[in-house]
């Protein structure tokens, strides 16, 4: 195997594990560029002359005028969320800053705030913008911002947690899911965190802002995670952010997400060390994990989730699917951005091997192939039966598996020549090969 071929494989890995693949143009532009150089550029685009794109979500809030008729609100809300989904999926596909979008989605999965609870699209948009703002910044800043974010105050009931009866929902998940993990706190810690976080409400207007009410707050000094004198949001977050388990918990989760089946628990202390030494800055951590992945000489595949599947399918074939159809595809596959099914986020990607997702993937592949433009390079490769080129365009420079190759050959032979291209492109997008990265 040539070095060039290995570099292509490394690049395909990097751009799909920390992004949503490469369009044919991006493949051309990045051909021959060292993957570690690509990584460095994506971690810090501004230093490499690439401006960070503005938040795609800005202006979405205008869909809900301040003087709306409440009776029309559900319809407006649905329209706003449909538009949000379209803008978001477009940005995942077309962004000039793929790492930023990938990390934003990682935090969306981590905090798992769902529009089904938040309801107000303006508050949801502000939440996503907040995740994006800190996506590869500092984890401490992110966690502090999320804690008082109106979307989170709604999602985990912080806004109705008062001194007399603290609501434990956020206090528990802050410890269990967002920072240190279930084995590092006690029920007393949950109570301490919940009590100290009481008193926050949402003041309406411009999507809502968090306001503090001393009257509703329990200012009793308590011990949280061994830290004494914890009584308000700052002292809670100090206790959490200084906890020795935090760097490993976050680093381990991010590493598992990027490295997939190649993730090894034994690497966690090393990643945690990097993370802690950089004051919980995320870029050095992402860099260390990605470099560990690039250093592997052979890698195990990882199932890609439906959002990754659809984004890659559009990106690599040039197909552009309208938002309504994309919403339908993602709904059938079982994963809709903005609507994680559970406080723990989207299920692990293996979940999408289920029968429903498999059937939806097959149907969606036909839909995408049907929408590929006439000048699509992938369509051209599929039409001529150039399976190696097709595989490379789809992000698999190592080629299709023997099973998929024989299926593609068989379908090509069984199809009238005018239809071979789209049929074989559809099949290539349905293959197990295209489902893993």
């Amino acid at each position: 195997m040539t070095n060039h071929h290995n570099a292509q494989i490394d690049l395909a890995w990097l751009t799909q594990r920390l992004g949503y693949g490469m369009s044919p143009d991006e493949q051309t532009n990045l051909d021959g560029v060292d993957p570690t150089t690509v990584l460095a550029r994506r971690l810090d685009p501004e230093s490499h002359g690439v401006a960070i794109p503005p938040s795609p979500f800005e202006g979405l809030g205008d869909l809900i005028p301040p003087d709306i008729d409440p009776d029309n609100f559900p319809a407006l809300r649905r329209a706003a969320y449909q538009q949000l989904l379209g803008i978001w999926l477009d940005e995942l596909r077309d962004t000039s800053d793929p790492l930023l979008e990938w990390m934003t989605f990682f935090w969306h999965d981590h905090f798992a705030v769902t529009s089904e609870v938040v309801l107000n699209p303006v508050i949801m948009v502000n939440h996503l913008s907040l995740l994006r703002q800190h996506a590869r910044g500092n984890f401490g800043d992110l966690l502090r911002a999320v804690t008082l974010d109106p979307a989170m105050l709604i999602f985990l009931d912080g806004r109705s947690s008062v001194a007399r009866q603290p609501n434990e929902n956020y206090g528990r998940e802050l410890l269990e899911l967002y920072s240190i993990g279930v084995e590092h706190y006690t029920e007393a810690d949950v109570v301490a965190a919940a009590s100290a976080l009481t008193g926050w409400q949402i003041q309406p207007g411009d999507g809502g802002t968090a306001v503090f009410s001393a009257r509703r707050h329990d200012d009793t000094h308590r011990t949280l995670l061994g830290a004494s004198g914890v009584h308000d949001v700052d002292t809670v977050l100090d206790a959490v952010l200084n906890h020795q388990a935090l760097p490993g918990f976050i680093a381990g989760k991010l590493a598992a997400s990027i490295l997939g089946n190649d993730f090894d628990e034994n690497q966690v202390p090393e990643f945690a060390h990097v993370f802690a030494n950089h004051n919980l800055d995320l870029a050095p951590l992402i860099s260390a994990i990605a470099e560990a992945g690039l250093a592997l000489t052979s890698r195990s595949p990882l199932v890609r989730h439906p959002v990754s599947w659809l984004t890659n399918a559009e990106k690599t074939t040039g197909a552009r699917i309208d938002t309504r159809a994309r919403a339908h595809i993602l709904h059938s596959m079982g994963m809709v951005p903005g609507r994680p099914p559970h406080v723990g986020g989207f299920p692990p990607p293996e979940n999408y091997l289920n029968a429903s997702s498999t059937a939806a993937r097959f149907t969606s592949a036909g839909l995408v192939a049907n929408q590929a433009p006439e000048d699509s390079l992938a369509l051209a490769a599929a039409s001529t039966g150039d399976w190696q080129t097709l595989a490379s365009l789809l992000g698999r420079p190592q080629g299709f598996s023997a099973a998929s190759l024989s299926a593609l050959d068989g379908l090509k032979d069984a199809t009238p020549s005018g239809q071979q291209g789209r049929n074989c492109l559809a099949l290539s997008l349905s293959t197990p090969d295209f489902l893993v990265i």
Partner: protein
Amino acid sequence: MNENLNRRRFLYLAGGATAAAATGAAAWAGLLREQVNGAPTLTLPGLTTTTTSMTPTTTTSLAPGQGPKNPVLVIVQMQGGNDGLNTLVPLNGRYQDLRPTLALGDHEMLDLSDAQDFALHPALAPLLPLWENNLLTGVTGIGIPGQGRSHFTASDSWHSGRTSPETTGWLGRWLDATANGPANPLRAVSLGGGAPILTAESQLSTIINSPRNFRLSTPPGSDSEAIVAAFLQTASPLSGDPTLAAAQMAIPSTLEAIEVLGVDSGVTADEPPEENYTSLLDTAAGLIDLDVGTEVIVVSVHGFDTHSDQRSRQEKLLANLAAGLASFHQRLEANGHADRVLIMTTSEFGRRVQENASGGTDHGTAGAQFIIGPNQGIIGQVDLDNLVDGDVPIAVDTRSMYATALDWLGGPTDEILGKKYDRLLDNLP
């Protein structure tokens, strides 16, 4: 520290990507290749397509109506942790003291004839006829000792039937232990979401998020038969990599499930894509009608994590639950299946006795469940005078309910649960 994360990853993969299952799936691929045919039309947003429904050309062991009239277990999962205290209400003064705003008034609750100590939430009225016909058992104070209040640790215990780390679900272990002959992916079916209780080492089960969307479509004018056949062909030979092999194995089992369920779906394109729990139970009933060897069906109902506004939310949730169960049972009776179907509800935990300030309740431990089958009564107790850390103490081990379910399926019960637990019903046929 990421052991939990990884364990969770694994638990979600109901079906297990192991070499043992691969053999069965490969055999299937061969069987199915001969059974693929083309057919009618439906509309997807923005695109007219041809639906491929596959009509079996030969009779297989899975052909509808040919299966044995075996016992069936239907599990209804109340996701999020249902509040047992307001479901099966203990008729004792402390209840109303402990729940100043959430307690149901005496006039609101539904009396259960012959049961002096408990009443039903009014939204559960559709279950009363089952009670009157000696077909409803309530189980209260039920939980797994040591399960914890976290959604995840509690869910892990609930799914595995163990409090120590375990990668298989309790029903997954039953599927493995009783596997016999060619694998049948429709032996265990989960509707409306994943079912970690079905995670097995070697046996595949079928997870269908949305039965209405569960079909294959190909673009107009394309040769659907050839494309589906080629899709199936991508599943063999199996890759040596377990992840890729799992993605391959999903294909023949999906086609098999569509082939069977497609016969009964009767879906029109005009129906809304949103699925609800009642329509999932309709699919479950249809699956039992088909008689294709389905032994376990898991249906998920979501939304029971009532940290706030519990009064109105739980009322809607329970009304929906009860209406669905009642109509499901009526359909089973009308079609002559009621005697061989046992229905059980489950939930990861009950909720705290004390209300929070949001008009809701936080995570607790013991809860309440229902069994619909040949028995009437209330099992267990709610001791509000001896709360454990603010929770209803556990009076019935959840594994006793599992043992009852496994007995219904024919066991081997104690082997699967790793211990002999008391049975809840002793007059099972």
